[in-house]
Structures are given as C-alpha cells and as structure tokens.
C-alpha cells in the first residue's frame, strides 16, 4: 500500500480510464393485432417490475375552453371502473406492492405502475381495467375538483408558478403549449361526459405503447398476459394534434407583481426546437455551456463571482412540436438590475465567444455521463424508452445519444447560439414585488405589469 501511494502524485487529480461504452439493455418488441406496441426489458437485479402505458394525448389536445381536461382524465383514470371502486383499485395495487397512476403532460398521457415481480399478472389486470373501463364516477369527480382547486391555489402562492406560466404564454402564444395550468373555472367545468369522450378519443391500442421492465417471466408468457388483458380493445382513428404554429420570437418584458416577494424570480426565454431538429444537439450543448450545472458560465458569473443568487441556470425543454429555451435565476431585490444585465451579457457572449476546447469537452462529457447515470433505475429507463416512442424519435436515439453529443462542434454552438440565445428577441419575465423592483426593470424597457393573482 505504501509503495503504491508513493508513486501517486496526490497534488493533481488522478488520470482515469475513458468512459466505458454502455450497451443499452436488449429491448424485445412485439405488437398485438389491434396495434398495441409492447416493449419488454429484462432486469433481474431486484424482484420488482415497472410498467408504462403511454399515448400521444396530453394537454395540447385540451379544448381551448377546458384547459386541464387531459390532466383531470389522467388523475381520474384510476378512480373507478365498472368492476372496481377507487378504493378497491388503491387497495389492490397496494396489496401487490405496487402503485398505479396516470399523468398527462403537454404531448402525452402515461399510466405508470410498478409491483413486486411475482404480481406482474395482477398489475397488468389493473392497468387494463383502468385504461379500458374507467367510469369517472361523479363522486370522484367532485373530490377531484375540490382538491385540485386547493392545490392550484397553493401552487399559485409560489413565484415559480407565475414565472413559468407567463413565460410559456409569451413564447408559445396561441398554441396550447402556452397553457401550463388549468384555471379555477375550468376545473369546475370538468364533467363526466367530457372525461369519457377524452378517454374514448385519445386512448387507443393502435397509438399506445406498453413497456414492461424488470424480473419478468418468459417473453411469450408476458406477451400472452398482455394479449389476454388488452387483446379485445378496438383500434380507433388517431386524433390529429393542433397545428404546430408558433409566434415569431420578439423581445418582451413582463413584470408579475407579487406583493411581499423578498426576491425576484427572473426568466429569460425563447422558442426553441424539438429533439428531432438538427439544431437540437448543438443547442443542448450551447445551453449547457451557458447554464448547465455549477461550472457553467451563468453559475460562475452570477453566483460565484457576484453572489447575486443561490441558483442560476439555463435549460432546454423540448416538447414534441417545439421547445423552450430559458434562463432561470432568483435574485435579491436590490440586485435585479445588475443580475439581469449579467444574464443578458452571458447570453450575448455565448454567440460571440463560442466554447473553448476545454469547455466543449467538459460539457460533452457532462451530457454523456448524465445520460448514462439516468438509466440506473427501471423507472428511468422506462421513461427514456417511452419518450423515444411518444416523441417519434429514431429507434436508435438512445444508442446514438452520446455519439451525437460528442459530434457537436464549437462552430455549431456559435451558430445555434446566434439563432436561439439572442437577448434581442428573448422574452423576459420577472416575478417580484413591483413596488421594489419596477424602477430597476425600467432600464430594460417598459414592462407590461400583471398581478400574481
């Protein structure tokens, strides 16, 4: 041991071997006659199984007068079927060591479940029952409405709620991506008929993807279990999504007045691309150089050098038809002006000073490593596989992910930064106490002021 330590230079970080190549686990695919796609992945580390059943549904299909319909349908899907009350579903899921719940995002609705491995058949039975036979009982709808309204009120007491909502409204304009949340009124208007109609229109075997991961019995046996439960489900015509039309980005400044805020929540955002766009990987790298993690330019400048904020980051949120690029930081009231100045300066700089070779290499390794780290649990892998299917990405997207990150050049970063990270056409949204920060903001233009209520 001592001889070993003598030859090691402890004054410098050790040399380490390169990242081992990670082989994606084998995915076995099958399809039922009604078009339901099935993906199976073996994972025998622990005696558990994970299930996902996803559909191209979600809030972008909500009628304009009923934001929150998809979310309500998802929440109520597991609250009663022809055969089971909501309580029976909850108790039967708990009894197999499982959970079962559905969630709707902007582009999709996904039923998520898990159980102890020996109970896979029962998990599939419950999943099929709620998907095919949900009844949306009146009593459960009433409970949902009352609870969701209180939750919404609680969410609205947070500055981040307003920042995210107003930024999405500005960037996505008339497209449903602009609506992140229901309203108290729209929650009240949710009815059984609309929920059942949503389910009948949006959930169909021919658009669905079922993923089962874990300590599985034989593949044929799993496929047979799935066929027994989902085989009689009739295919339907797929619903066309709303047109992917978005407003042309232009500079705007909005102040959300939240009385009593002890700090200001700053967002600077812009319309960006989805994962299928050739600009996606270069922009992902550019956004990460700018504000991904604690070594990024934004973090170093705003937190480490200036001490303006605890957190300063940028992010890219790709959806199916477009994406949102944004910078996020929360700063104390007294430094709103220099902090926002610093954010815009860094956004400007990324196009003028593309990443150095070191920055670029670090960010590529970061993105590649984070990707591998994100495949450690069944749940994480299931989410990635579902994302590839529902976003209609190339089948080898996950296998190719790190290679595509590594292929990004500094010139590409510069080019996409000029295109998407320009302060000149960014939307600025600041949530804070207007009586304390309005003056500081006026140096950036005349803000449109709305109330946080």
């Amino acid at each position: 041991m001592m001889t070993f330590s003598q030859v090691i230079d402890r004054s410098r970080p050790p040399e380490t071997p390169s990242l081992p190549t990670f082989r994606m686990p084998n995915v076995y695919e099958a399809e039922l006659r009604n078009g339901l796609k099935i993906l199976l992945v073996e994972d025998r580390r622990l005696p558990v199984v994970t299930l996902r059943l996803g559909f191209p549904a979600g809030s972008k299909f909500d009628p304009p007068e009923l934001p929150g319909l998809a979310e309500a349908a998802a929440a109520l899907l597991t609250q009663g079927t022809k055969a089971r009350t909501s309580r029976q579903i909850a108790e039967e899921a708990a009894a197999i060591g499982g959970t079962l719940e559905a969630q709707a995002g902007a582009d999709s609705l996904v039923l998520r479940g898990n159980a102890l491995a020996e109970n896979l058949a029962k998990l599939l039975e419950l999943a099929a029952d709620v998907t095919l036979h949900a009844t949306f009982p009146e009593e459960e709808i009433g409970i949902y409405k009352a609870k969701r309204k209180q939750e919404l009120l609680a969410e609205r007491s947070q500055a981040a709620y307003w920042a995210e909502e107003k930024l999405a409204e500005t960037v996505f304009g008339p497209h449903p991506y602009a609506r992140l949340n229901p309203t108290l009124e729209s929650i009240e208007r949710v009815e059984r008929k609309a929920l059942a109609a949503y389910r009948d229109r949006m959930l169909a075997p021919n658009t669905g993807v079922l993923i089962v991961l874990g300590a599985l019995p034989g593949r044929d046996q799993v496929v047979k279990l799935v066929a027994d439960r989902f085989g009689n489900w009739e295919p339907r015509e797929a619903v066309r999504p709303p047109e992917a039309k978005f407003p042309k980005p232009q500079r705007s400044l909005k102040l959300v007045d939240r009385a009593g805020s002890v700090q200001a929540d700053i967002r600077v955002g812009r319309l960006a691309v989805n994962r299928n766009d050739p600009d996606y990987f270069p922009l992902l790298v550019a956004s990460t150089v700018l504000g991904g993690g604690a070594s990024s330019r934004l973090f170093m400048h705003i937190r480490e050098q200036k001490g303006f904020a605890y957190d300063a980051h940028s992010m890219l949120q790709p959806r199916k038809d477009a994406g949102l690029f944004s910078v996020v930081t929360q700063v104390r009231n007294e430094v709103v002006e220099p902090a926002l100045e610093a954010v815009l300066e860094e956004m400007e700089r990324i196009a003028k000073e593309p990443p150095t070779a070191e920055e670029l290499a670090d960010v590529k390794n970061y993105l590649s490593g984070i990707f591998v780290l994100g495949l450690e649990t069944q749940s994480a892998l299931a989410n990635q596989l579902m994302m590839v299917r529902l976003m209609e990405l190339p089948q080898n997207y996950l296998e190719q992910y790190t290679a595509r990150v590594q292929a990004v050049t500094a010139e590409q970063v510069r080019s996409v930064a000029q295109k998407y990270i320009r302060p000149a056409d960014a939307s600025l949204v600041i949530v804070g106490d207007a009586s304390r920060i309005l003056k500081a903001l006026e140096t950036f233009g005349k803000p449109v002021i709305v109330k946080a209520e």
Partner: protein
Amino acid sequence: MKTVLLPALVFCVTKVMSADFRIAFEKYTLDNGMRVILAPDRSVPVVSIYLIYGVGARSEERGRTGFAHLFEHMMFQGSANAPKGLHFKLVESNGGTLNGSTHPDYTDYYEVLPSNKLAAGLWLEADRMRGLAITEENLANQKEAVKQERRLSFDNQPYATAIVDHWPQLAFRNWSNSHSLIGSFEDLEAATVEDVARFFKTYYAPNNAVLVLAGDLDTAEAKKLVGTYFGDIPPQPPPKHPDLSEPATIEARSATYADPHAQVPAVVIGYPGPPRRSADYYALAMLDVLLTGGESSRFQQNLVKGKQSVVQFEANLGWPFASASDYKEPGHYAIFLLHNPKFAGRDVVDQAQAEIDAIRKEGVGEAELNRARTFLRASRIHQLQSSLRRAMLLGQYELLDGNPDLINTELQEFLKVTSEQIRAAAAKYCTPERRFTLEIVPGKAETARGERGK
C-alpha cells in the same frame, strides 16, 4: 384462531422476504479510524461515493445557528490541491452529480460518477478532508450564498419558514434541538474563519466519518485507492456530542403562524417519538404506513376522499428533517396536512387524531396490515435500485446504528410488527396529551390572524 395463525403467517412473509434480495457489502476500518463500506454491483457503469460525517445542526453553539450548513457550503470552495471550482468542474465535466446536505445529526456529501472516474471522486473527497481552503473571501462569498438560499427556499416560500424556524421551537425545549437549522442572518454574519477552522478540525476527521462506495467497482482496486488517498489523514480526538435530552414530562402545546406566502391553510401535528431501533420505532413506522402510505392509506381514503378536508399530506418519523431511515431521537412522529379552508385547522387536527384513535382503540385488521407490509416491502426494494440510495442507507446505518447490514435485515423487523404492537405504540405515543400543534394560516406575518394577505 387468529392469534394462533398470526406467527406462522409472519414467519412466512419474512421467509419469502429474506430470499428476495441481498445487498452484498464489505466493511473495514482504516488505521486512522475511518470506516469504509464497499458495495459492488456491476450491472450499470455508475459508482456512488458517499461520505457521511458525524456532525450536524444539533452540534451548533448559541450565536452560531446555521453554522453546520454554512460549513457544508465551505466544503465546495476548494482544498489544498483542488482550487475553488475544481470540485464541481471535475465531477460535472465527467457527467457526474454531486451535493452535500446538512441534517440535525449528520452532514453528508456524495458524488455519483461514471465508474471510470472513481479515483477522481476519491481524490476530491480526500483532498478536502485533508485540508480545506478556509479563507475570508470564500467565507464572505458563502455567507451571501446561504442568505440567498434562505431567501429562495424559505423566506419566499409558503410553509417553509413555519416548518424550519417555528415548528422546532414549538416541538423542542432543548436549544440544541429547537434552533433553526438554516440559521439567522445575524448568526451567519457573525461566523469567522476561526470558527470554520475549529469546526473543521473537530468534526471533519477520518475517525468521525464513514465512506461508502456503491455500484460498479472492483473491491481490490477500490481498497487500494481508498488507502492511497485517505490512509494517512490524521485522526483527531473524538468530538464531544451535545446533550440533546428533552424534559421527561411532555406538555401539549399549540401555536398559530400567519404565513404571508400561503394561500391554503395547513396544520402540523407531532408527537415525541421512541428511541431509534426500539420495538416502538418499528411499530410507529408501521402506523405511519397505515395512516399515510400511498393511495390506500387511511388519511387518503378517509380525510382526502371521505371528509374532503385534507388536500395533501406528508408524514414521517423524524419529519421534517428525517425519515424513519435516519430518524434519531429526540424527534417526532409528525404530520403535515394541507387542508381545505372550509375546515378550521382545529377540526382537521381532531380528524387526524380520530384516525389515530381508531387504531389506538381497535388495532388494525390482518388484510390491511398485510397490505401495509407489502407496501413497505415494495417501496424499500424499489429505492435500492439506485446506487446512491444504497450507499446512503449503508452509511447512515453504520453511523447511526453501527450496523450497515440493517439494509438487509431491518425489513424483517418492520414486517414482524403486529396489530397489537401498533395499537400499543399509538396509545403510548400519539395522544392529544403529548401532541404539539402548529396551525399555519394565510396572512401577513405582522397582522392579526385571519386577515388574508394578497
């Protein structure tokens, strides 16, 4: 019949359980007293490095609230050979994640890395344990960062100030337990570099730490690396631990906090809890599963859905800063209930108490108890998929119990708990006579309660 059948049934459950899984690990101690646990699992090329130190917010002195947390920030400001910024850069540029967190009884740090970077992570942790860069500039900068964190995560959030500052004052009598973990701006400002240096020397010694490596690693190679980097860091005299004892007599107390950011009212109720790993500890943890574990739990079915008084809830043995896994007495079995404003906070407290009283009077039926056992077993197994979670549990069980094998064996203790034990524990601990209650109502802090703030 039931009483005869019961032991057999439990035995059966336990037997299936123990055959379910086993987290393999090896534990040894370096000459300088640092305990090391290696838990290899080579299925995914990820390794977690977890370092847990036996010092937390309860070791703070008067006039220095928030110091343990401020010190945790200083751990990321550079060390003898790793200049400021390198720690983040080295981990993140390799795709890793890292963090540190301050708890009442311990402070922990982790790096999750692609497994080829194990040596780099160990080098970083050893370099800062060996010699931290304690400078005026770093301290001044981190005081600002912590104040900003306080504004972001507490002062500008609903419920957070009530929970971190007011709840401990209501629920504890001993200052070591009741003071704010995040600290006051005055106390943070008062901290000096001498304080930092003394704290470092006293508590951040190898003999006051446990290092856990979990995931894709070769045991022999890992041992060699650990010896190289940590082996000659000198030990320090074992630190003195503060007297944390609370008065033996418990008097129920209640208070109301007007929260300027809250729009929906909430209540917190808590009961002083049992010693860690006692029979009552396992019984109360099972009571918690019955009351609040998932969709089929009593609070969900009876309060959220039945009475529709509660909107959301969370509860834990050790809430708000711990869970059953890292609960250490003195602490509470505490419950947070966000509730419908149509109900008075007092009525929601009574409803929650009535749910506990029902178990206190009648115990719990076998079907419901078995469901709770299965729920607990499954949620425990699920979390073990993550190498970081495995590392954390091994480290915490070594530090708090001196027995990391509890990761494999504790489940049986939970599953053995009987209806009668749960009933008795509820009767002993969860009564109104020993209950602390904090009502959080929307409103301006400086105005009378009931007046709504905008």
